[in-house]
């Protein structure tokens, strides 16, 4: 389901991720994401959420709508994944390992691009306390520029 190129991006290149939900009144909410991993089915993504942003379960259980945007800071390569909530879990070792990887990449890149100390950047990526699992329904290219907003999956009809 998720193309190989994007899987590679998720695994090695994405440096920052944020997610969105909405409640019954269509009021949207932001939830920072401290790490991510793709399950073997290549269509379910596990998002690690820090405790401060875990107040999303009610909305997810109510309507299931979830969006995740991941960017590679520097190149601005960005994808948005929209999908349906599957369930939640406590972070396992693999989630924590993914979190550490993301934190390291983030600190390195932000230090390069914005010149901020790596330690400060690492601290900014909070330890996750909850994992949200969702199946990807659509993928949008969100890299700024000529193709921004273009739906990659399922491919847009010309």
């Amino acid at each position, binding site marked *: 389901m998720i193309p190989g190129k994007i899987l590679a991006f998720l695994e090695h290149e994405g440096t920052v991720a944020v997610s969105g939900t909405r409640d019954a009144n269509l009021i949207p909410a932001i939830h920072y994401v401290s790490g991510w991993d793709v399950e073997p089915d290549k269509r379910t993504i596990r998002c690690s959420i820090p405790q401060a942003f875990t107040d999303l379960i009610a909305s997810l259980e109510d309507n299931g709508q979830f969006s995740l945007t991941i960017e590679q800071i520097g*190149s*601005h390569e960005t994808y948005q994944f929209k999908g349906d909530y599957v369930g939640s879990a406590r972070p396992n070792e693999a989630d924590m390992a993914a979190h550490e990887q993301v934190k390291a990449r983030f600190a390195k890149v932000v230090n390069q*691009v*914005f*010149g901020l100390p790596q330690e400060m950047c690492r601290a900014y990526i909070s330890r996750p306390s909850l994992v949200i699992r969702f199946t990807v329904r659509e993928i949008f290219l969100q*890299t*700024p*520029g*000529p*193709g921004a907003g273009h739906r990659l999956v399922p491919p847009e009809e010309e």
Partner: protein
Amino acid sequence: MATQDIQSNERLVEKLAQKTAEVHVLKHIALNINSTLDLDQIYDLVLGTMDEFFGFRHSIILLLEDSDTLRVVASHGHENQPLGGTVPVGTGVIGTVAKRRRLMRVNNLRPQRAYFSTIRRQMEEAGRASELGKIVPVPGLPDAESQIAIPLMIKDRLIGVFSVESREQRTFSDDDEALATIVANLAASAIQNARLYRLVEERRSELAEAHDHLKQLNETLEDRVSARTRELEQTNRELRETQVQLVQSGKMASLGMLAAGIAHEINTPIGAIHSNADVERRAIGVIRDVLQDPAFPEKLRDQPRLKHTFKIFDDINRVTLEATERVIKVIQSLKSFARLDEPELELVNLHEGLDSTLTLINHLTKDRIEVVRNYGELPKVQCYASQINQVFVNLLTNAAQAIKETGTITITTHQDGACAVIEVADTGGGIKPEHLDRIFDPGFTTKGVSVGLGLGLSITYRIIENHRGSIDVRSELGKGTILTVRLPMAPPRSYLAEDQTVTVPLG
């Protein structure tokens, strides 16, 4: 809570100290910036102080060169960038600030530039390069993170931009912005003052130069005007004299020709009368001789009527001879005077000229004026005889006319070095002192318009001048006038104009 209060107070104290320091630095700038009118000193003060006290390491001042271009006039902390770089108005942070005349603070310059560059690259890769514009290099740090650019304004008019950049991640704060704004305003005023001063100085020096030039021109002009005026006056006088001479000479020429004609016509009959009278006288003598013959009756010979008749014949013949001789003399004078056949420069006996003239003006002097000819030794003088005779006519006519009733004209001649001197003195009424220096002016006369043209002495003056001679006048009211003419014996020929107007003198 107490700890928090103390911390809060400490922060306030710290902030107060910082603000106080800022005020001192601003005061320092404000005081010093107005003590100089040297632009470089102003730039150094502004940029140096901003670095030293506020840590603004990289700053530049650009001034508006024309409506489209800003030029870097001062730079601090941009070692590798020479001054003089330009920024098009409307391009980059500085150009945009100039275009909008609004301060601008950018805190993510490098990421933004990178972001735009990334998108540019993507568009190029997507074959959309034609939609892109040119990349314009702008002065400043290529890797600046933050920048404050402030328009330098004088009232509503933009004169330039003051820009501060930083590579530091520490972004410029509101305080920094306020501080930079104050300094920019101070700088704008000082720069404008200095520029105005420079402009005024330039204008002043230009004005002074222009003034000097004008003054010089004026002086030259005055000289030229006055020289030209003199020239014109001279030309005017000459023109008038020439006109007068032309009129006079025309008149004189016709009178001269008439006189010559008359002389010629009279000469023959007078000659006949004269010789007839002589023949008659000799014939009477023959008759007397015949009457003495013894064969002639004595009674008839001694008859008183015959003797009386002979006496009448003798008297008539004598009168006829005398009268004709006098007429012949007058005719000779006329011929000599007119000299129509002698227009060339020649050696002239001035005494003859004087005598001829006196003969011709006899009617003016007869019976009331005694003419004393006090002639000295005088060689012949090289001159135009007819012109000199005209001088004599004018001098003697004036002298005769100056004497209302009876008096004396004394003509004195002598040689003085290379000059012949002719002095004509009359015992007339004299000339008023105020008229003395005008008597040689054309048209000046005291005789009244009907008497003459007032040209006599002016022509005289001109003729003598042409001969390189001189004439002067001395006069005393009620006692008389002496006119003295000095003529060079042999004036250089070149002095005498080739086209001398032939003036035929007549009283």
